[in-house]
Protein backbone atom coordinates (compact mmCIF):
# COMPACT_ATOMS: atom_id res chain seq x y z
CA UNK A 1 0.00 0.00 0.00
CA UNK A 2 0.93 3.62 -0.37
CA UNK A 3 3.72 5.30 1.49
CA UNK A 4 3.31 8.75 0.04
CA UNK A 5 2.71 12.27 1.22
CA UNK A 6 4.01 15.81 1.36
CA UNK A 7 7.24 17.07 2.90
CA UNK A 8 5.19 19.74 4.67
CA UNK A 9 3.72 16.95 6.81
CA UNK A 10 6.65 14.52 6.93
CA UNK A 11 10.21 15.76 7.07
CA UNK A 12 13.06 13.91 5.41
CA UNK A 13 14.38 12.92 8.85
CA UNK A 14 11.02 11.40 9.76
CA UNK A 15 10.99 9.46 6.49
CA UNK A 16 14.53 8.21 7.03
CA UNK A 17 13.54 7.19 10.54
CA UNK A 18 10.58 5.21 9.22
CA UNK A 19 12.70 3.52 6.52
CA UNK A 20 15.34 2.71 9.14
CA UNK A 21 12.90 1.25 11.68
CA UNK A 22 10.97 -0.73 9.08
CA UNK A 23 14.22 -1.97 7.45
CA UNK A 24 12.80 -1.06 4.06
CA UNK A 25 14.22 -1.92 0.67
CA UNK A 26 13.30 0.30 -2.26
CA UNK A 27 13.63 3.88 -3.40
CA UNK A 28 12.33 7.09 -1.89
CA UNK A 29 11.37 9.39 -4.75
CA UNK A 30 10.92 13.05 -3.86
CA UNK A 31 9.53 15.54 -6.37
CA UNK A 32 10.94 18.84 -5.14
CA UNK A 33 10.26 22.35 -6.42
CA UNK A 34 12.75 22.08 -9.28
CA UNK A 35 14.43 18.69 -9.01
CA UNK A 36 13.67 15.05 -8.37
CA UNK A 37 15.58 12.97 -5.83
CA UNK A 38 16.04 9.20 -5.79
CA UNK A 39 17.33 7.73 -2.55
CA UNK A 40 17.66 3.96 -2.52
CA UNK A 41 17.81 1.66 0.49
CA UNK A 42 18.49 -1.97 1.24
CA UNK A 43 17.09 -3.35 4.49
CA UNK A 44 16.86 0.12 5.98
CA UNK A 45 20.39 1.16 5.05
CA UNK A 46 21.30 3.83 2.52
CA UNK A 47 22.52 2.23 -0.71
CA UNK A 48 22.51 4.96 -3.35
CA UNK A 49 21.36 8.54 -3.93
CA UNK A 50 20.86 10.84 -6.88
CA UNK A 51 19.35 14.30 -7.14
CA UNK A 52 18.27 15.91 -10.40
CA UNK A 53 20.72 15.68 -13.28
CA UNK A 54 23.71 15.57 -10.98
CA UNK A 55 26.35 13.25 -12.45
CA UNK A 56 26.78 10.76 -9.66
CA UNK A 57 29.08 8.52 -11.68
CA UNK A 58 32.07 7.05 -9.86
CA UNK A 59 34.46 9.01 -12.08
CA UNK A 60 32.74 12.31 -11.20
CA UNK A 61 32.69 11.49 -7.49
CA UNK A 62 36.38 10.58 -7.43
CA UNK A 63 37.28 13.66 -9.46
CA UNK A 64 35.36 15.95 -7.09
CA UNK A 65 37.15 14.30 -4.18
CA UNK A 66 40.52 14.88 -5.92
CA UNK A 67 41.21 11.16 -6.02
CA UNK A 68 41.79 11.39 -9.77
CA UNK A 69 42.99 14.44 -11.70
CA UNK A 70 41.27 16.26 -14.56
CA UNK A 71 43.18 14.37 -17.24
CA UNK A 72 42.35 11.01 -15.72
CA UNK A 73 38.73 12.03 -15.39
CA UNK A 74 38.52 13.09 -19.04
CA UNK A 75 40.25 9.90 -20.15
CA UNK A 76 37.76 7.81 -18.22
CA UNK A 77 34.79 9.71 -19.63
CA UNK A 78 36.17 9.37 -23.19
CA UNK A 79 37.26 5.75 -23.04
CA UNK A 80 35.11 4.08 -20.48
CA UNK A 81 31.72 5.27 -21.67
CA UNK A 82 30.19 1.81 -21.80
CA UNK A 83 31.77 0.62 -18.57
CA UNK A 84 29.65 0.30 -15.44
CA UNK A 85 30.83 1.96 -12.22
CA UNK A 86 31.52 -1.44 -10.76
CA UNK A 87 33.79 -2.35 -13.70
CA UNK A 88 35.47 1.03 -13.56
CA UNK A 89 36.02 0.73 -9.83
CA UNK A 90 37.67 -2.64 -10.26
CA UNK A 91 39.86 -1.26 -13.04
CA UNK A 92 40.99 1.70 -10.92
CA UNK A 93 41.73 -0.52 -7.91
CA UNK A 94 43.71 -2.98 -10.03
CA UNK A 95 45.63 -0.12 -11.64
CA UNK A 96 46.51 1.17 -8.17
CA UNK A 97 44.86 4.59 -8.55
CA UNK A 98 42.51 4.14 -5.63
CA UNK A 99 41.69 1.57 -2.98
CA UNK A 100 38.33 -0.06 -2.40
CA UNK A 101 38.11 1.90 0.84
CA UNK A 102 38.68 5.18 -1.07
CA UNK A 103 35.80 4.37 -3.38
CA UNK A 104 33.33 3.44 -0.65
CA UNK A 105 34.32 6.33 1.59
CA UNK A 106 33.97 8.91 -1.18
CA UNK A 107 30.64 7.52 -2.32
CA UNK A 108 29.41 7.68 1.30
CA UNK A 109 30.52 11.31 1.56
CA UNK A 110 28.88 12.11 -1.77
CA UNK A 111 25.56 10.44 -0.85
CA UNK A 112 25.55 12.08 2.59
CA UNK A 113 26.02 15.48 0.93
CA UNK A 114 23.04 14.79 -1.32
CA UNK A 115 20.89 13.94 1.69
CA UNK A 116 22.10 17.11 3.43
CA UNK A 117 20.81 18.98 0.39
CA UNK A 118 17.52 17.10 0.67
CA UNK A 119 17.17 18.22 4.30
CA UNK A 120 16.75 21.77 3.02
CA UNK A 121 13.69 20.82 0.95
CA UNK A 122 10.52 21.86 2.74
CA UNK A 123 8.16 21.47 -0.20
CA UNK A 124 7.74 18.34 -2.25
CA UNK A 125 5.75 15.20 -2.79
CA UNK A 126 7.34 11.93 -1.75
CA UNK A 127 6.59 8.30 -2.41
CA UNK A 128 8.39 5.12 -1.47
CA UNK A 129 8.69 2.64 -4.35
CA UNK A 130 9.30 -0.90 -3.14
CA UNK A 131 9.90 -2.02 -6.71
CA UNK A 132 12.64 0.44 -7.59
CA UNK A 133 15.85 -1.11 -6.32
CA UNK A 134 19.27 0.56 -6.15
CA UNK A 135 20.75 0.63 -9.68
CA UNK A 136 22.81 -2.43 -10.54
CA UNK A 137 25.33 -0.58 -12.67
CA UNK A 138 26.30 1.79 -9.84
CA UNK A 139 28.28 0.93 -6.73
CA UNK A 140 25.98 0.64 -3.75
CA UNK A 141 27.04 1.46 -0.21
CA UNK A 142 25.54 0.20 3.04
CA UNK A 143 25.24 3.13 5.43
CA UNK A 144 23.45 3.17 8.76
CA UNK A 145 20.92 5.98 8.88
CA UNK A 146 21.07 6.96 12.56
CA UNK A 147 23.85 9.51 12.21
CA UNK A 148 22.25 11.06 9.12
CA UNK A 149 18.92 11.31 10.98
CA UNK A 150 20.52 12.99 13.99
CA UNK A 151 22.31 15.41 11.68
CA UNK A 152 19.05 16.24 9.90
CA UNK A 153 17.24 16.74 13.19
CA UNK A 154 19.84 19.31 14.24
CA UNK A 155 18.66 21.47 11.36
CA UNK A 156 15.07 21.61 12.58
CA UNK A 157 14.59 25.16 13.73
CA UNK A 158 10.86 25.70 14.02
CA UNK A 159 9.85 25.90 17.66
CA UNK A 160 6.24 25.18 16.78
CA UNK A 161 7.11 21.86 15.18
CA UNK A 162 9.38 20.93 18.07
CA UNK A 163 6.54 21.66 20.49
CA UNK A 164 4.24 19.43 18.45
CA UNK A 165 6.78 16.64 18.57
CA UNK A 166 7.56 17.06 22.27
CA UNK A 167 4.48 18.68 23.83
CA UNK A 168 5.75 18.63 27.42
CA UNK A 169 9.20 18.79 28.99
CA UNK A 170 7.75 17.17 32.10
CA UNK A 171 7.96 13.78 30.40
CA UNK A 172 10.99 11.56 30.96
CA UNK A 173 13.07 9.58 28.47
CA UNK A 174 14.09 5.97 28.32
CA UNK A 175 16.35 4.07 25.95
CA UNK A 176 14.77 1.91 23.29
CA UNK A 177 15.97 -1.61 22.68
CA UNK A 178 18.19 -0.44 19.85
CA UNK A 179 21.88 -0.59 20.68
CA UNK A 180 23.64 2.76 21.04
CA UNK A 181 26.72 2.07 18.93
CA UNK A 182 28.64 3.98 16.27
CA UNK A 183 26.57 7.08 16.86
CA UNK A 184 28.19 10.45 16.36
CA UNK A 185 26.76 12.73 19.02
CA UNK A 186 27.69 16.30 19.84
CA UNK A 187 28.83 17.25 23.35
CA UNK A 188 25.38 18.62 24.21
CA UNK A 189 23.71 15.49 22.87
CA UNK A 190 25.96 13.31 25.03
CA UNK A 191 25.10 15.45 28.05
CA UNK A 192 21.43 14.69 27.47
CA UNK A 193 22.04 10.98 26.77
CA UNK A 194 23.94 10.72 30.05
CA UNK A 195 20.80 11.63 31.98
CA UNK A 196 18.32 9.47 30.05
CA UNK A 197 16.42 7.73 32.82
CA UNK A 198 12.69 7.53 33.62
CA UNK A 199 13.55 9.29 36.90
CA UNK A 200 14.63 12.48 35.11
CA UNK A 201 12.22 14.76 33.27
CA UNK A 202 13.45 16.60 30.21
CA UNK A 203 13.04 19.84 32.15
CA UNK A 204 15.43 18.54 34.82
CA UNK A 205 17.89 17.37 32.18
CA UNK A 206 17.81 20.82 30.55
CA UNK A 207 18.32 22.58 33.88
CA UNK A 208 21.20 20.32 34.90
CA UNK A 209 22.95 20.86 31.59
CA UNK A 210 22.08 24.57 31.35
CA UNK A 211 20.25 24.03 28.08
CA UNK A 212 17.35 26.18 26.92
CA UNK A 213 13.95 24.62 26.26
CA UNK A 214 14.41 24.79 22.50
CA UNK A 215 17.91 23.30 22.75
CA UNK A 216 16.77 20.32 24.79
CA UNK A 217 13.72 19.83 22.54
CA UNK A 218 15.93 19.81 19.44
CA UNK A 219 18.36 17.32 20.94
CA UNK A 220 15.58 15.03 22.18
CA UNK A 221 13.85 15.29 18.81
CA UNK A 222 16.99 14.02 17.11
CA UNK A 223 17.37 11.14 19.55
CA UNK A 224 13.68 10.25 19.11
CA UNK A 225 13.94 10.38 15.34
CA UNK A 226 17.00 8.15 15.36
CA UNK A 227 15.01 5.66 17.43
CA UNK A 228 17.49 5.79 20.31
CA UNK A 229 15.11 6.98 23.02
CA UNK A 230 11.39 7.16 23.62
CA UNK A 231 9.19 9.30 25.80
CA UNK A 232 8.21 7.85 29.17
CA UNK A 233 6.08 8.84 32.08
CA UNK A 234 8.40 10.06 34.87
CA UNK A 235 9.01 7.24 37.36
CA UNK A 236 7.96 9.35 40.35
CA UNK A 237 4.91 10.97 38.69
CA UNK A 238 1.62 10.47 40.53
CA UNK A 239 -0.99 8.33 38.77
CA UNK A 240 -3.11 10.85 36.91
CA UNK A 241 -6.45 9.37 37.82
CA UNK A 242 -7.80 6.92 40.34
CA UNK A 243 -8.85 3.65 38.72
CA UNK A 244 -11.87 3.48 40.99
CA UNK A 245 -13.70 6.01 38.85
CA UNK A 246 -13.56 3.57 35.91
CA UNK A 247 -15.74 0.76 37.26
CA UNK A 248 -19.06 0.98 39.07
CA UNK A 249 -17.77 -1.72 41.44
CA UNK A 250 -14.50 -2.17 43.35
CA UNK A 251 -14.70 -5.94 43.47
CA UNK A 252 -12.11 -7.38 41.04
CA UNK A 253 -14.19 -10.44 40.16
CA UNK A 254 -17.24 -8.29 39.48
CA UNK A 255 -15.12 -6.04 37.30
CA UNK A 256 -13.93 -9.02 35.25
CA UNK A 257 -17.48 -10.29 34.98
CA UNK A 258 -18.58 -6.89 33.72
CA UNK A 259 -15.90 -6.89 31.01
CA UNK A 260 -16.87 -10.43 29.99
CA UNK A 261 -20.50 -9.31 29.72
CA UNK A 262 -19.42 -6.44 27.48
CA UNK A 263 -17.40 -8.84 25.32
CA UNK A 264 -20.39 -11.14 24.98
CA UNK A 265 -22.66 -8.28 24.03
CA UNK A 266 -20.31 -6.78 21.44
CA UNK A 267 -19.88 -10.21 19.82
CA UNK A 268 -23.65 -10.42 19.41
CA UNK A 269 -23.96 -7.09 17.63
Amino acid at each position, binding site marked *: *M*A*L*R*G*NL*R*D*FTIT*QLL*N*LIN*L*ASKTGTLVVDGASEQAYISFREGKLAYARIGKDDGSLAAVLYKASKINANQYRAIVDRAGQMTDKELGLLLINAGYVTQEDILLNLQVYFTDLIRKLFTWVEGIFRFENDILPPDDRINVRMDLENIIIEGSRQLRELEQLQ*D*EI*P*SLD*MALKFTERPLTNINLSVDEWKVVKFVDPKNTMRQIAKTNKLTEIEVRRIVYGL*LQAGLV*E*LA*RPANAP*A*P*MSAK*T*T*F*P*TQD*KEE*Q*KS*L*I*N*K*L*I*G*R*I*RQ*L
Partner: protein
Amino acid sequence: MQTVKMVVTGPFSAGKTQFIQSVSEIDVVATERKISSDEERTVKSSTTVAMDFGRITVDEDLVLYLFGTPGQKRFDFMWEILSEGMLGFIVMVDSTRPETFREARSILETFRAYAPTPYVVAANKQDKEDAWDLEDMGHALRLDKNTKLLPCVATDRASVKTILLELLYSILQEMESGK
Protein backbone atom coordinates in the same frame (compact mmCIF):
# COMPACT_ATOMS: atom_id res chain seq x y z
CA MET B 1 -28.23 0.56 36.52
CA GLN B 2 -24.46 0.42 35.98
CA THR B 3 -22.84 2.45 33.25
CA VAL B 4 -19.36 2.27 31.82
CA LYS B 5 -17.77 4.28 29.05
CA MET B 6 -15.17 4.17 26.35
CA VAL B 7 -13.79 7.16 24.50
CA VAL B 8 -13.15 7.38 20.77
CA THR B 9 -10.61 10.06 19.99
CA GLY B 10 -8.39 11.10 17.10
CA PRO B 11 -7.66 13.99 14.76
CA PHE B 12 -10.25 15.98 12.83
CA SER B 13 -12.12 13.87 10.27
CA ALA B 14 -10.55 10.56 11.35
CA GLY B 15 -13.96 8.82 11.37
CA LYS B 16 -14.89 8.92 15.07
CA THR B 17 -18.55 9.83 14.61
CA GLN B 18 -18.97 7.17 11.92
CA PHE B 19 -17.27 4.59 14.15
CA ILE B 20 -19.78 5.18 16.95
CA GLN B 21 -22.70 5.30 14.53
CA SER B 22 -21.79 1.85 13.21
CA VAL B 23 -22.48 0.13 16.54
CA SER B 24 -24.68 2.45 18.57
CA GLU B 25 -28.23 1.22 19.18
CA ILE B 26 -29.44 4.81 19.28
CA ASP B 27 -28.91 7.47 16.69
CA VAL B 28 -25.69 9.08 17.71
CA VAL B 29 -26.27 12.26 19.60
CA ALA B 30 -23.81 14.30 17.61
CA THR B 31 -23.17 17.91 18.40
CA GLU B 32 -22.02 18.99 14.97
CA ARG B 33 -21.49 22.43 13.59
CA LYS B 34 -20.75 23.79 10.15
CA ILE B 35 -17.01 24.11 9.53
CA SER B 36 -15.78 27.69 9.55
CA SER B 37 -12.21 27.24 8.30
CA ASP B 38 -11.67 26.97 4.54
CA GLU B 39 -8.95 24.34 4.96
CA GLU B 40 -11.11 22.10 7.14
CA ARG B 41 -14.14 22.62 4.88
CA THR B 42 -12.25 20.92 2.06
CA VAL B 43 -12.20 17.73 4.16
CA LYS B 44 -15.79 17.69 5.41
CA SER B 45 -18.67 20.10 5.86
CA SER B 46 -19.53 19.69 9.54
CA THR B 47 -17.65 18.52 12.62
CA THR B 48 -18.10 17.52 16.26
CA VAL B 49 -17.52 20.45 18.61
CA ALA B 50 -18.52 18.96 21.96
CA MET B 51 -18.91 15.23 21.73
CA ASP B 52 -20.66 12.32 20.07
CA PHE B 53 -22.59 10.00 22.22
CA GLY B 54 -23.58 6.40 21.42
CA ARG B 55 -25.04 3.62 23.54
CA ILE B 56 -24.89 -0.18 23.67
CA THR B 57 -27.17 -1.81 26.24
CA VAL B 58 -25.67 -5.00 27.64
CA ASP B 59 -28.55 -6.04 29.89
CA GLU B 60 -31.05 -4.35 32.17
CA ASP B 61 -28.25 -3.56 34.64
CA LEU B 62 -25.39 -2.55 32.40
CA VAL B 63 -24.96 0.03 29.63
CA LEU B 64 -21.85 0.92 27.66
CA TYR B 65 -21.56 4.50 26.46
CA LEU B 66 -19.27 5.51 23.64
CA PHE B 67 -18.08 9.09 23.65
CA GLY B 68 -16.45 10.66 20.61
CA THR B 69 -14.21 13.63 21.22
CA PRO B 70 -14.03 16.70 19.01
CA GLY B 71 -11.03 16.36 16.71
CA GLN B 72 -10.06 19.98 16.40
CA LYS B 73 -7.39 21.15 18.80
CA ARG B 74 -9.28 24.25 19.84
CA PHE B 75 -11.81 22.00 21.57
CA ASP B 76 -9.23 19.99 23.51
CA PHE B 77 -10.52 21.36 26.82
CA MET B 78 -13.29 18.76 26.36
CA TRP B 79 -10.88 15.84 26.24
CA GLU B 80 -10.01 15.70 29.90
CA ILE B 81 -13.66 15.92 30.90
CA LEU B 82 -14.60 13.13 28.50
CA SER B 83 -11.74 10.91 29.58
CA GLU B 84 -12.77 10.86 33.24
CA GLY B 85 -13.67 7.37 34.34
CA MET B 86 -13.23 5.70 30.95
CA LEU B 87 -12.56 1.96 30.74
CA GLY B 88 -10.25 2.55 27.84
CA PHE B 89 -9.91 4.55 24.66
CA ILE B 90 -9.61 4.15 20.92
CA VAL B 91 -7.45 6.47 18.85
CA MET B 92 -8.82 6.73 15.32
CA VAL B 93 -6.36 7.65 12.57
CA ASP B 94 -7.21 8.20 8.91
CA SER B 95 -4.75 5.91 7.09
CA THR B 96 -5.00 8.03 3.94
CA ARG B 97 -4.03 11.34 5.57
CA PRO B 98 -0.42 11.20 6.76
CA GLU B 99 -0.61 14.91 7.50
CA THR B 100 -2.72 14.01 10.57
CA PHE B 101 -0.34 11.40 12.02
CA ARG B 102 1.64 13.90 14.06
CA GLU B 103 -1.54 15.22 15.62
CA ALA B 104 -2.75 11.67 16.29
CA ARG B 105 0.47 10.98 18.15
CA SER B 106 0.02 14.11 20.20
CA ILE B 107 -3.60 13.20 21.05
CA LEU B 108 -2.51 9.70 22.05
CA GLU B 109 0.16 11.10 24.38
CA THR B 110 -2.35 13.53 25.88
CA PHE B 111 -4.89 10.80 26.63
CA ARG B 112 -2.22 8.53 28.06
CA ALA B 113 -1.35 11.35 30.41
CA TYR B 114 -5.00 11.80 31.45
CA ALA B 115 -5.54 8.17 32.43
CA PRO B 116 -3.36 5.06 32.45
CA THR B 117 -6.14 2.97 30.91
CA PRO B 118 -5.72 0.50 28.05
CA TYR B 119 -6.08 1.77 24.50
CA VAL B 120 -5.92 0.61 20.91
CA VAL B 121 -5.17 2.52 17.71
CA ALA B 122 -7.60 2.04 14.82
CA ALA B 123 -6.17 2.68 11.35
CA ASN B 124 -9.32 3.82 9.59
CA LYS B 125 -10.02 3.72 5.84
CA GLN B 126 -7.78 0.71 5.31
CA ASP B 127 -10.06 -0.22 2.40
CA LYS B 128 -8.81 2.79 0.42
CA GLU B 129 -6.12 2.43 -2.20
CA ASP B 130 -4.04 5.29 -0.83
CA ALA B 131 -4.11 3.99 2.76
CA TRP B 132 -0.72 3.70 4.44
CA ASP B 133 0.52 0.28 5.38
CA LEU B 134 -0.05 -0.67 9.04
CA GLU B 135 3.63 -1.23 9.68
CA ASP B 136 4.55 2.17 8.25
CA MET B 137 1.80 3.81 10.29
CA GLY B 138 3.07 2.13 13.44
CA HIS B 139 6.51 3.63 12.89
CA ALA B 140 5.15 7.04 11.90
CA LEU B 141 2.97 7.10 15.02
CA ARG B 142 5.93 5.85 17.10
CA LEU B 143 3.84 3.10 18.64
CA ASP B 144 5.71 0.60 20.73
CA LYS B 145 5.49 -3.03 19.74
CA ASN B 146 2.95 -3.82 22.47
CA THR B 147 0.41 -1.29 21.25
CA LYS B 148 -2.42 -2.77 19.20
CA LEU B 149 -2.64 -1.02 15.82
CA LEU B 150 -5.68 -2.48 14.07
CA PRO B 151 -7.03 -2.12 10.55
CA CYS B 152 -10.44 -0.48 10.55
CA VAL B 153 -13.26 0.61 8.28
CA ALA B 154 -15.46 2.79 10.46
CA THR B 155 -18.50 2.32 8.21
CA ASP B 156 -18.32 -1.46 8.62
CA ARG B 157 -19.96 -2.78 11.79
CA ALA B 158 -17.88 -5.98 11.85
CA SER B 159 -14.68 -3.97 11.69
CA VAL B 160 -15.82 -1.65 14.50
CA LYS B 161 -16.82 -4.66 16.62
CA THR B 162 -13.33 -6.08 16.22
CA ILE B 163 -11.78 -2.85 17.48
CA LEU B 164 -14.08 -2.71 20.52
CA LEU B 165 -13.41 -6.36 21.30
CA GLU B 166 -9.65 -5.91 21.04
CA LEU B 167 -9.86 -3.04 23.50
CA LEU B 168 -11.94 -5.14 25.89
CA TYR B 169 -9.46 -8.02 25.60
CA SER B 170 -6.68 -5.57 26.50
CA ILE B 171 -8.64 -4.34 29.51
CA LEU B 172 -9.27 -7.91 30.66
CA GLN B 173 -5.64 -8.86 30.12
CA GLU B 174 -4.48 -5.91 32.18
CA MET B 175 -6.88 -6.83 35.00
CA GLU B 176 -5.68 -10.41 34.98
CA SER B 177 -2.05 -9.35 35.03
CA GLY B 178 -2.91 -7.29 38.12
CA LYS B 179 -1.67 -3.93 36.77
